[in-house]
């Protein structure tokens, strides 16, 4: 779908978060000069079109005890990416699975997936089981556990990319 300027402004507002008031769509609309019904209809359209991936409570896994979070990256041949990605994406503990560009020689990895767990041992056990289940033993990969979190907030799509 083609997003209008109004859609983009609305998207930016809901990505930052709904106001925690009884009628949040009315409040967002009032700030933008839109009726509540129009706000709801535009959000429904953007959700149906997949522009909004999900609308809901955005939890901070770390604060809830999911302190281990590994990004696992795989050096998999282009022709095999689809097959390996389908196997990984079907795992319930894998929350994201993306193809990204390689930058050889420093960065040979093209497939990224994210695994969350309560501790590192749990994440490692999950990963080992996945590797065996899908026959990925020969695939070079790296496990990048997360350390400190410096920023986590909703994406800001509008406005200039300034400091």
């Amino acid at each position: 779908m083609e997003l209008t300027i109004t859609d983009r402004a609305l998207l930016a507002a809901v990505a930052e978060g709904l106001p925690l008031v009884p009628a949040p769509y009315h409040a967002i609309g009032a700030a933008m000069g839109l009726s509540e019904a129009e706000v709801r209809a535009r959000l429904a359209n953007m959700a149906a079109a997949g522009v909004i991936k999900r609308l809901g409570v955005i939890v901070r896994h770390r604060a809830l005890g999911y302190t281990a979070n590994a990004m696992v990256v795989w050096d998999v041949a282009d022709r095999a990416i689809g097959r390996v990605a389908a196997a990984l994406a079907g795992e319930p503990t894998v929350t994201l699975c993306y193809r990204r560009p390689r930058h050889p020689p420093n960065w040979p990895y093209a497939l990224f997936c994210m695994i969350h767990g309560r501790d590192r041992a749990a994440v490692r056990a999950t990963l080992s089981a996945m590797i065996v289940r899908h026959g990925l033993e020969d695939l070079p990969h790296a496990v990048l556990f997360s350390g400190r979190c410096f920023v986590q907030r909703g994406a800001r799509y509008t406005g200039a990319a300034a400091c």
Partner: protein
Amino acid sequence: MPPLDAIDRALLDRFQSGFPLDPRPFATLGAALGIAESDVLSRLDALQASGAISRVGAVVAPGRAGASTLAAMAVPEARLDEIAALISAYSSVNHNYEREHRFNLWFVVTASDAAAVQAVLGDIASRTGILPLDLPLLEAFHIDLGFPLQWN
């Protein structure tokens, strides 16, 4: 963080996606949980204040509105705090994490278009002397519907 009761846990578990688009969405959540709208709002306020949730809001599909990329930098340990703070100060950076690897600083840049994203990466490279790896999303294989929490 204060302990979470069964209703807090249900709020966190059941509404990570599919948040209602009706005029009084928090009343709808309350009806599903058997509590008042005002109780839903005060619990969400408390969960936000304690850091259990970042917000009630939208996750936007990458690449569908504006442009974004994942970037990684190999930062000498002694400069990590300084460079992480420099990167966090950009309003276009919405995630910024340390990871245990030679590429130890990872962040997401989101802006109105691809040129604006590249301008931020270029600015960071010139201010730090370290070239970020540019790792934009090429293909997504997983639909993020939130994350099933397991309460011990």
